[in-house]
């Protein structure tokens, strides 16, 4: 396990030194600008607007990082041949995949942590105090992290057999389709015969990001059910585990030319 953590911490270090966390500066500027502007033009819905804007920004910034770093996690190492001096050591291929995955997830968690501080600071600036419903912000951020874990796993899966460009296309496409996963399931329910089977299968194969998006309800101060947290956690865990296992399986048999 120490080899996995070594690879993960090196992946994290790479992201930090490649200035990935500089996106925090852009986020901080966005939150500061939004807080000042919203405070002047919104009548009584400042909190709602800032939370909506902040959580959406966290989601989009993280998505871009997850996809663009995720697709290069394996392919860049093969292309630059840095993998040769790793896999010629007592490192199993699955350990490498798991380490790279863990490193990028850790990067995204740290990134989200600092962004969360920004959102809470903006809410405090506008409302002058926290209220009980603000605690659900943490649940929304947790669900966003679960989305990052899933999209990182998918990007890793695609990058284990495809080119970086195609991997990015696949990952973004799945994110968009997954955002409308509930509609896809509704559509499947309306069809008949073989089409129903195919539509239902497709609806369950694509990641259900819709279920993980509670930004709007949290912005309106609505509570989040404990069962949703449990089911979403299990769903994201199982989906990501399946995608990472797929990446490991493909990479295990790949010739490094």
């Amino acid at each position, binding site marked *: 396990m120490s080899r996995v953590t070594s690879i993960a911490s090196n992946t994290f*270090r790479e992201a930090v030194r490649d200035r990935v966390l500089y996106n925090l500066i852009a986020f901080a500027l966005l939150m500061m600008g939004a807080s000042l502007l919203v405070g002047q033009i919104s009548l009584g819905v400042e909190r709602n607007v800032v939370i909506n804007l902040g959580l959406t920004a966290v989601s989009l910034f993280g998505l871009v990082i997850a996809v663009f770093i995720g697709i290069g996690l394996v392919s860049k190492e093969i292309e630059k041949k840095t993998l*040769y001096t790793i896999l*010629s050591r*007592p490192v199993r291929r699955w350990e490498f995949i798991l380490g790279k995955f863990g490193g990028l997830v850790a990067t995204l968690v740290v990134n989200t942590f600092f962004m969360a501080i920004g959102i809470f600071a903006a809410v405090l600036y506008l409302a002058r105090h926290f209220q009980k419903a603000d605690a659900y912000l943490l649940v929304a951020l947790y669900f966003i992290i679960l989305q990052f874990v899933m999209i990182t796993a998918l990007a890793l899966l695609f990058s284990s057999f495809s080119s970086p460009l195609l991997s990015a296309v696949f990952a973004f496409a799945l994110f968009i389709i997954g955002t409308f996963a509930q509609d896809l399931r509704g559509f499947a329910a309306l069809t008949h015969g073989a089409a129903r089977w195919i539509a239902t299968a497709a609806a369950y194969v694509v990641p259900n990001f819709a279920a993980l998006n509670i930004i709007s309800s949290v912005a309106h101060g609505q509570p989040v059910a404990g069962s949703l947290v449990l089911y979403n956690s299990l769903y994201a865990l199982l989906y990501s585990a399946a995608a990472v296992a797929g990446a490991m399986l493909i990479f295990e048999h790949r010739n490094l030319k």
Partner: protein
Amino acid sequence: MFAIETFGLEKTYSVGFWRKRPRCALRPLTLGVEEGEVFGYLGPNGAGKTTTLKLLMGLMFPTSGSAKILGMEVDDPRMKAQIGFLPEQPYFYDYLTARELLEYYAQLSGVEARARARRVAAVLERVGLVDVSGVQLRKFSKGMLQRVGIAQAILHDPKVVFLDEPMSGLDPIGRREVRDLIASLKEEGKTVFFSTHILSDAEALCDRVAILHQGELRGIGVIADLTSSVRGKVEVMWQGGNIPPAIRSLGGECHLTGEMARSIIAEEQLDLAIDALRRANLKLVSVTPVRATLEDYFVEKLSPAEAIAK
């Protein structure tokens, strides 16, 4: 006991986009490298040297055949803890410093935490990178990166070291240092398997060599044995500014440079040549046995198979 063994190791790629067709990168290769031996793996570019090394490192999977290193399968982590590998034209994580990179590799190689710093310091000293150990690798020259590559290959004190074109990109001093390093690895009892197309390096360092061409093993053995086939000739050198007809008639190649002349003849014609020089009142300067070089053998083995048969 063999440190490295291959048994009919073969690799075929599929090339082409629509109609895939096979291209053989390595024909069935069977060879053994003894423990403690420095083994040169020679061949021109595209001969299949790097393919062989990738198969041995488990980076590629053979189409057929198998290989063992230190008696273990090539994907066995216990074996990998005991080998070091320098890839051709290595590229490392350039956001790390040399020290950070070596510490990372030491962790992956299973070097104990308390021994890590000492081991890294020792290997940095050995390859002459102590002064730049805190500099990010993106600022390193090609020669310095090659040193880092060698350092990471020997960092964990491996029993077998694989070097793919270790002299590539090095200046004469760097090449000399790598040669000395390989010699010192041999003194330490390590097995060194290195691929190169620089024959003088192989001749100076190797106990045995193998010659590979178009994916096929064309020759293997101790250098002295491989080159003995062209022996049996001598070079006669004399002073006097001319080549007597009696020497020309021996059929050897003759050269005249100012006052000095020389001819390469068969050993059994030596007495005739000396008599001819004496009769012509020319001064014999030297008689040197002609020893074929590894280059002669190499070139011979790289000729088409039909030419060799003739």
